């Protein structure tokens, strides 16, 4: 079994699925959804089988499940795939998220027909590219997947998004292309620095090159800008809130939860591994940018009224943590960052999809249009709360382990940075709890069908404060009897989660809880990859200093 081309298979199955979905005859167009779901589930099963073939013990080569074929030997380009623990974990996360997203996207294209077929086919094509980009062990092949991913996402946003979808799609494309082109220059220049030959683009060929310091730094910057846009980091993050807000929730999940990980994945695989010296040189700047991302995006999230934008900003803040952990380069911070990539995928998926469930019902993305929804959709309210708690890294849920590891590992080397990052923890409580309060709590909303059939919210005291105008510390002086009685009891036509949505929610919540209490399988997978990276960079963990005083603002 070990010679079986698992990774290629993982890429091909969704592609076949996409073809089948888009070629379905007109009469059976309604089959597009189940067919797409089945193909994504088959991919997941194959992915799990592939994972069982992966060995986590010591003494393994960097990449396993490898396939290498000559592609364009004149340019040294190979079709080379392979995974380490990090890549495999990211691929598995993607394979889990795709069927969940498909299920959540079930009614995204209500008109059905050709348009629906295209939608689901594009999602499957995207899955292929996701596998490819994480599995590529040839720099050029990686670049091809890196750029190819843009195409399905562009159409998914531009054709199926909200009212400002054109703007958001073009903005996404321009930012990505800008970074991609800089990276292309760096990719070619890197090849020039290498030994060349018909396998000249392989990561293994290009690792440990002898370059002049200035060349290495230029190449590092070329790659890093592309990854920083993708990740996204401050100040090149502004495409993400628009793209996430205009996308369908399922697309936002794959965009923010998976595709953006290519940025942080790339920083580890390419920036650190190929340019270790330049990485050290750039560390101070990168850490400052990461800290700005953490704090700045968290504050920006507090001020958002659009739920989807809010979640996008929380992601920018969380990416700040991931980048911080990567560039602090301790064993603990690095494994924390890699685990964070996985956890963030699931947490963001839960937040986007559950917010999507709310938006489908409330017909609005604005937090101020909600309030009291715990009373009418208790199950949805409950799972939304759990997703939010995961977003604020509550211990016992998945994100805590990774955020904790990132911060404590960073603190080992950079006390001030670790101390500042903690502020993000407090701010996270604010952006999550204010949203939860304004959406879920308060008197039961009175809902009535408006003239156009959409739901409008009643207005006698049922609209709570917005997140922005609410003050944190007002006294609870409203008496129970001040609340209009009908506000407590009047029902509405809004239904709680149906079976399909409960499945989506149940799977995601289970993952959030299990990874919180039992992250061992993921950590076992990641540990060897972390050691490998540290070896490439050539950095040792600082040893405990019991006798010294902590520096800086560590109090």
């Amino acid at each position, binding site marked *: 079994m070990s010679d079986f081309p698992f990774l290629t298979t993982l890429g091909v199955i969704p592609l076949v699925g996409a073809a089948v979905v888009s070629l379905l005859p007109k009469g059976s167009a309604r089959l597009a959804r189940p067919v797409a779901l089945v193909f994504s589930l088959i991919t997941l099963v194959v992915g799990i089988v592939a994972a069982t073939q992966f060995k986590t013990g010591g003494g393994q080569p960097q990449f396993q499940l490898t396939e290498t074929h000559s592609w364009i030997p004149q340019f040294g380009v190979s079709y080379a795939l392979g995974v380490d623990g990090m890549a495999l974990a990211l691929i598995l996360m993607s394979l889990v998220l795709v069927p969940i997203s498909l299920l959540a996207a079930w009614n995204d294209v209500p008109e059905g027909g050709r348009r629906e077929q295209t939608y689901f086919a594009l999602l499957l094509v995207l899955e292929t590219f996701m596998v490819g980009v994480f599995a590529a062990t040839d720099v050029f092949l990686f670049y091809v997947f890196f750029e190819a991913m843009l195409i399905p996402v562009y159409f998914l946003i531009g054709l199926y998004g909200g009212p400002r979808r054109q703007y958001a799609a073009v*903005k996404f494309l*321009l930012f990505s292309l800008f970074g991609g082109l800089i990276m292309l220059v760096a990719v*070619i220049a890197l090849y020039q620095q290498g030994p060349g030959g018909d396998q000249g683009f392989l990561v293994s060929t290009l690792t440990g090159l002898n370059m002049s310091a200035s060349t290495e730094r230029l190449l590092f910057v070329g790659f890093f800008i592309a990854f920083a846009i993708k990740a996204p980091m401050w*100040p090149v993050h*502004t495409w993400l809130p628009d793209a996430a807000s205009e996308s369908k929730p399922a697309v936002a999940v794959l965009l923010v939860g998976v595709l953006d990980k290519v940025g942080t994945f790339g920083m580890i695989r390419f920036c650190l591994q190929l340019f270790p010296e330049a990485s050290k040189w750039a560390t101070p700047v990168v850490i400052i940018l990461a800290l700005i991302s953490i704090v700045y995006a968290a504050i920006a999230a507090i*001020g958002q009224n659009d739920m989807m934008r809010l979640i996008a900003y929380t992601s920018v803040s969380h990416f700040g943590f991931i980048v911080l952990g990567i560039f602090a380069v*301790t*064993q*603990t911070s690095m494994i*924390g960052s890699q685990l964070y990539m996985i956890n963030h995928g699931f947490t963001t998926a839960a937040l986007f999809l559950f917010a999507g469930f709310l938006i489908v019902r409330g017909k609005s993305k604005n937090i101020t249009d909600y309030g009291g929804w715990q009373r009418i959709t208790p199950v949805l309210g*409950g799972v939304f709360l759990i997703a939010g708690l995961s977003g604020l890294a*509550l*211990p*016992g849920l998945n994100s*805590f382990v990774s955020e*904790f*590891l990132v*911060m*404590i*590992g960073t*603190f*080992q080397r950079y*006390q001030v940075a670790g*101390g500042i990052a*903690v502020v993000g*923890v*407090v701010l996270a*409580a604010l952006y999550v*709890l*204010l949203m939860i*309060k304004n959406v879920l*709590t*308060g*008197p*039961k909303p009175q809902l009535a069908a408006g003239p156009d059939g959409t739901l409008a919210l009643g207005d006698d005291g049922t609209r*709570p*404060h917005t997140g*922005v105008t609410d*003050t*944190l*510390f*007002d*006294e*609870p002086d409203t008496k*129970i009897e001040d*609340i209009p009685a009908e506000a407590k009891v009047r029902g509405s036509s809004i239904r709680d989660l149906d079976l399909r949505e409960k499945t989506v929610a149940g799977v995601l919540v289970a993952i959030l809880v299990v990874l919180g209490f*039992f*992250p*061992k399988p993921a950590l*076992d997978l990641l*540990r060897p990859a972390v050691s490998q990276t540290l070896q490439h960079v050539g950095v040792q*963990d*600082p040893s*405990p*200093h*019991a*006798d*010294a005083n*902590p520096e800086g603002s560590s*109090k």
Partner: protein
Amino acid sequence: MHDATGVASVGWLMIALPLLGAAVLLLGGKALDKAGPYLAVLLSWAAFVIGLLIVLQLRGRGAEERAMHLHLYSWIPAGSLNLDAGLLIDQLSTTFVLLITFVGSLIMVYSLGYMEHDPDKRRFFAYLNLFVASMLLLVLADSYVLLFVGWEGVGLASYLLIGFWNWNPAYATAANKAFFLNRVGDMGMLLAMFIMFWAWGKLDFAGVNAAVAGTGKGTLLAIGLCLLVAACGKSAQFPLQSWLGDAMAGPTPVSALIHAATMVTAGVYLIVRSNVIFTASENARLAVCIVGAITLAAGAIIGCAKDDMKKALAASTMSQIGYMVLAAGLGPVGYAFAIFHLVTHGFFKAGMFLGAGSVMHGMNDQVDMRRFGGLSTVMKITWVTFGLGFLAIIGFPGLSGFWSKDKIIESAFIGEGWKPWVFGLTALLAAGVTAFYMSRLFFMTFMGKRRWTEDVHPHESPLTMTIPMMILAVGSAFLGLILGPTNIITDWLEPVVGAHEEGHPVIGQYPLMAITVVLMIIGVAIAWKMYWRDDVPITPPVGSPLTQAARRDLGQDDLNEAVFARPGLHLTRSLVFFDNKVVDGGGNGMAAGIGGSSARLKKMQNGYVRSYSLTMLLGVVAILGAWWVVQ
């Protein structure tokens, strides 16, 4: 340390059973609306039984042989940070286990009556079970990280229960406020763990305790202060205390269990659990004492001014925890007394909160004590049980508070220089104030003339509610006598908190006891004159500036509002504006620029063949150039 054997080897069941209850109740849906609450109560009692068996098992061993460690599983194997989940079953943790499960289970029985008609009572009991499980995890954890899981778990349960009636937006805000201020404290907890890992590479109690010796003073002080910040958040100590009063928005059994008897005392547990660190750092202990002294005084002053019965009790809780924190800050002379007072306080304060709930139950949820009065005649059981708690807290000779609080006052006078005088006198005077505000509360509620609103018909509560009150009242009365003068509690805790140091107070022990009792009598007497003999006005008098400030919690909310909330609001608004206009504007400006250049590029498509062929030539040259470079 020994590996757990016997009953202790299934100690994890104490956490798992209530957790299971929470999950079953939450997932079970409406089918469990009737049976669910009973299941929750049963599982909580089961945890108590296991805890009791473990304590009996521990008692059967020699004092130094009692502590046991129960390894559970490999939790975070992250390489250099390799953390297992395990339980530390020792004298300190089991003391808490008994307090939590016994008082907790009693309060859950009480809740069966109190919440009988609430449509969401299944959810209520699920949250209570979640709380019990988290609190047990907090005290049983064998490492700071696992403790932190329980620490935030109880915070979550507290948040959910404060906001249990969150259709009232103000209650939802109170819940948010509690969670948020706790998070600020948690920042301290995280930083403490970071410094520990940085300095020692350890996060489990055994590893940390072993590494403390030989560590620099600065590091220890930093860790101590960070732990203190964490304790301030959780235990509502100055300057993070302002959430506790608002937390009374939760149903009264919640106030009794979480915001009086158990969760708010977790900060004291944290400090005593970290006693090796605090013993080694005198400055950190001094900071703890200062925080405790400020809070016990502030809480006592606020308690005198509140007319809301629950808020007055909340202020009292704050003040009493201040005593415990002060005791913990005194070091080896005080650790055991901090825990002793914590246990007796858990009984009498929980009992009084349940009494308050019983009063509210009979008075249509009225909490304004100016509308009470004369209830002793109609609610005899509540009156007597509350009265025992009242006598216990003011330190009536022989009752629980007399043994535990007076020990703290006495310990505070031990030492040299200015410290014993400042801390001792603060604790002593506040004891007099305590007697005043508690008597005020008791007399306004149960004595004097009836000042009821017209529509109320107070009546005694059902037995499900009064029996737990009676049991807690018995505990309030006699627990101190059983544990204190016999030295049971100090001997029991000695292997964990170190040998109890006998010190000599700067005032003799017996004169001090006499002064305390005199102050108590004065406090009661003043309250008797103002609130029993004289009529209590229904509208509160304007009051002195101090009273007015105390009504507003001594301005803590105003300060938070002015220093953090408003500037934070402006910062958020300006940052969002900046992000949209400046940062994003940069990107959009670039896009506009590209749009402009593409308009110019469009002009190149001019239809002239010569111009196209020139472009083609340039392209070919470029490709050949690239080829040459690459080769």
